[in-house]
């Protein structure tokens, strides 16, 4: 085995030193400018990702976006200033910084999403990450300019580098909304950009090979960059798992308000004149068609209660903290008392005071007939609900049974507890997910209510933003589907429409199911299996 001749650098140059024009051709300037272009593009994209992510998860997009960008830009200034402390070994430092940007920037979106879902101190992490990426990116261009300083004259150098830099920014600002977010999403988008940075790092080790002594050092740098590249590629493969761990990515429209309560994440999005409410990423209503849902939820039950002879004076709403069902209930003049029991005080406060929602529910929670109690419905029913007396109409509007803690609110035990506060002639209505998408789940709810000892009439309505939606009407005594509707200001229901809701087409008709009980929670299984088939 022969040893390669060892080039012994002069003593003062044991640290890498630029030796332009030493031997062979100078740097390939066009290639270096291409690297500048890529670096600039990546740098701006990280900034856009952090800003978008902050407004996604924290809401209030203007403030979040501008503070993130402010921090990012000042961090770049910090990086530029720090570059003066890098004396010798500029190339090595540059490649190291490239790898670091690739790693930190590439994983930033995934890291921040995960941190958001799992950590309570999200703000310091967000700004810390932005600061770190900004600083690293701020170091890049000054270092590159120093690498190029002997290839060009100063005026040329500045002109060329900055031109390419701004060009990169333009490309980034176009690619981000048009390609990156729609095609890749934030997590994959950041990883893709990180991969680009890692490739630049690897490429640089070849590009600058002739101006660096100690090739062994270069090999090490190359290995580092390859390692980062592989890590990011693995991240690309598992990005879906990562995002599933983080808050679902995310909403089709811009977020106008978001708040996290101890129970759920409340997000309002808006597109044009329409707005939507999401609870823990599940759509609760869209302002454009929620009237279909809430009219169908309230009025058929009210008609049945009236038909059975109930005075329709006292109404109980379980769930439904948005106040929209209460709005419909208050259309009945006979109503003297509405009790709304909802778990989340943040939700009911928003329904009262958040202008967008308070306008939509016609300030129903401000009505003197309405009282709000914040409690877990099951706990409330099991302890002390009977002190409230019995109700002529009970509206049960919980989120779909996608967890054990929601599934318990659809058990025979729960419906037996509800019966304790249901008036002899009263009626109750349960929202019961989609009989089209989750057919077994829907009929399981019907069967469970029936098994708890009530007579049932299943029905459904079309709510375009949800699809076909199912409800169950129930009463202590046998009853027919309602046929009469008092003269109310309704936008969806007529007497003929209402009658048609009780007809089930073939693809939603009854199927055999088990009864959902506390000790089997079979509905959560049905629901999970059925919805995962569609989405």
């Amino acid at each position, binding site marked *: 085995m022969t040893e390669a001749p060892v080039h012994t650098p002069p003593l003062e140059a044991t640290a890498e030193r630029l030796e332009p024009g030493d031997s062979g051709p100078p740097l390939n300037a066009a290639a270096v400018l291409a690297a500048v272009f890529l670096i600039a593009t990546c740098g701006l994209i990280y900034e856009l990702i952090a800003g978008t992510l902050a407004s996604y998860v924290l809401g209030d997009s203007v403030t979040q976006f501008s503070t993130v960008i402010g921090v990012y830009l000042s961090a770049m200034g910090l990086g530029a200033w720090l570059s003066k402390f890098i004396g010798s070994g500029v190339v090595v430092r540059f490649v190291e910084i490239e790898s670091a940007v690739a790693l930190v920037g590439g994983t930033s979106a995934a890291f921040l999403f995960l941190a958001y879902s799992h950590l309570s101190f999200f703000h310091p992490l967000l700004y810390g990450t932005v600061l770190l990426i900004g600083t690293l990116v701020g170091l890049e261009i000054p270092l590159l300019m120093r690498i190029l300083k002997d290839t060009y004259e100063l005026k040329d150098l500045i002109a060329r580098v900055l031109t390419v830099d701004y060009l990169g920014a333009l490309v980034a600002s176009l690619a981000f909304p048009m390609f990156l977010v729609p095609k890749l999403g934030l997590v994959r988008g950041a990883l893709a950009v990180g991969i680009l940075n890692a490739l630049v790092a690897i490429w640089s080790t070849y590009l600058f090979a002739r101006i660096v002594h100690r090739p062994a050092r270069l090999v090490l740098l190359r290995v580092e960059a390859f390692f980062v590249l592989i890590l990011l590629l693995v991240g690309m493969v598992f990005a879906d798992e990562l995002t599933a761990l983080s808050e679902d990515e995310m909403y089709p429209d811009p977020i106008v308000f978001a708040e996290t309560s*101890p129970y759920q994440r409340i997000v309002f999005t808006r597109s044009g004149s329409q707005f939507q409410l999401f609870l823990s990423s599940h759509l609760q209503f869209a302002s454009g068609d929620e009237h279909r849902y809430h009219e169908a939820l309230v009025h058929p039950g009210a008609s049945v209660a009236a038909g059975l002879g109930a005075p329709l004076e006292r109404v109980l709403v379980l769930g439904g903290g948005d106040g929209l069902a209460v709005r419909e209930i208050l259309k009945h003049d006979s109503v003297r008392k509405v009790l709304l029991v909802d778990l989340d005080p943040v939700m009911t406060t928003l329904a009262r005071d958040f202008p967008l929602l308070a306008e939509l529910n016609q300030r129903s929670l401000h009505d003197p007939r309405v009282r709000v109690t914040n409690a877990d419905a099951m*706990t409330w029913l099991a302890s002390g609900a009977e002190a409230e007396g019995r109700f002529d109409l009970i509206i049960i509007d919980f989120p779909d049974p996608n967890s054990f803690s929601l599934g318990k609110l659809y058990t025979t*035990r729960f419906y037996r507890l509800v019966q304790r506060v249901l008036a002899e002639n009263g009626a109750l209505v349960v929202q019961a997910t989609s009989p089209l998408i989750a057919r077994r789940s829907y009929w399981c709810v019907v069967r469970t209510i029936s098994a708890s000892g009530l007579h049932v009439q299943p029905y459904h309505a079309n709510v375009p933003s949800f699809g076909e939606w199912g409800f169950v009407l129930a009463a202590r005594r046998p009853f027919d589907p309602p046929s009469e509707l008092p003269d109310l200001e309704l936008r969806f229901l007529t007497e003929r429409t209402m009658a048609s809701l009780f007809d089930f087409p073939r693809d939603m008709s009854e199927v055999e199911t088990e009864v959902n*009980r*506390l*000790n*089997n929670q079979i509905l959560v299984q049905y629901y999970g299996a059925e919805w995962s088939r569609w989405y």
Partner: protein
Amino acid sequence: MVLKPALSFTRRDVLVGLLGASWAGCRRLPSSPELSGELVETTSAALAHRMRERTTLVPTRTEEVPVVILGGGIAGLAAAWWLQKSGIERFELLELGRAPGGTSASGVRDGLEFPWGAHYLPSPGDSQPELVQFLEQFGTVSRREASGALEYSETELCAAPKERVYFRGIWFEGLYPRAGASPAELEQLGRFEREVDTLIGVRGGDGRRALALPIAECSDDPKLRALDELSMAEWLDRLDFDSPRLRWLVDYACRDDFGLRPSETSAWAGLHYFAARTDAPDEDSAEFLTWPAGNGELVRRLVKAVGASRMHCEQLVLGVEPEGDGRRARVLVLDAKSNELRALIAERVIYALPSFTRRYLLSGFENSVDYHPPYAPWLVANVHLKDRPRSVGFPTAWDNVIYGSNSLGYVVATHQLHRERGPTVWTYYLPMADRSAASARAQLESLSWADASSAVVAELASCHPDFREHARRVDVLKWGHGMVRPEVGTLFGGTRQAAARPLGPVHFAHSDLSGMALFEEAFFHGTRAAKEVLGGVRL
């Protein structure tokens, strides 16, 4: 070189001793947690140990009581319940502890109840009529009018999700970790389930079921009883069950029900665990009944039904011997509160104490049988949390088992309350299965609160990253004689069955007479002894 006896244990030694060798390599030893807590005693051990001293004291009082029940565990309470139901007015129950209940003890703190020992009851079928009758009395079960089938109360049946297992850093639904199991392993699980299913249907030459409840009703067929001569591990070996996950499941089952490893467990007992709670092949296994106080809830109901006035706690029985012509018995008992020594002359005695006390307390009876089975020591800790720690994977269930651990994991005492947030209590169980009963007991006795609680915290923090943020208090209870151990050959090879026969006026009732510490067996023996007494009284 002088070998020094290892007298002092480091915390690492204690941790490894309790939790297993996998903790030997743990680099950062958990510091003693900054938590409050204490060692809890349901019975004064010092008082109990005075049982071994033969007293020379002369009783200050002699009283005549028709029936005396010694021991207020489930067997004694069930006997009292049956006597009371049968119209017997004059009987007295003597209990050593501060409250009745035995190993079904429970506690309450800050409005939350929690078990200190037994914490569930598989819902009984019609083969246990007395137990069903007791549960009917308190509305836990009713009979459907049409079919006559038993229907258990939805709020007392264990709510879903029931079980999960912590395996390689993630919680999975159920007890058997299916994630990543090879087809061969799953095949073995299926084959094991089929073997058990076959055993459920097996009947002996006498027409009785091989493995059923109560154990006294099981077939006498020697071919079936031969299983007792085999260890559970040997049984698995013979049928080529070598899947690590299946072996772990069986190991967990043996430790859970018997405080034993499969290599020591009678295969008859091990298979009984899997087969006895199902009435027929292909049927689902009986669902569990459970309450925040665990079986402490059943203790409360028994006490309520019997009447607390008939029960006397902190009573140390010092001796039982024949009185006069031997048709009556004389019980010597020390009231630990007043330090008064009484002699009770009883027509009948129901001896519902663990059988290991017989050699200290029984004297003067002919044909007395010495039955001294081994008992597993247990460590139970109740961990009070101000809110629910996070888990990765399947959400918190009732029973939360840690794969590969020496412990059984923990049970959420508030599970049946259906509150997903706020304060809770986790009951952590650690059977001392790895040594002989006596040396394990010595190890347990030497354990300080700090050592025990730091082991508990170390293990729970290893599967919940934010556990330490939420834990507030750890109380620890040491059960020296937690449950009888059905070791190989102890069920049918020894004096167990003979020990259940009456000695003159003394009738015996305890779960250890079945060789297994099951609520059902204690209840069976209690009501059986009460029926013997009633038969005798009528005569």
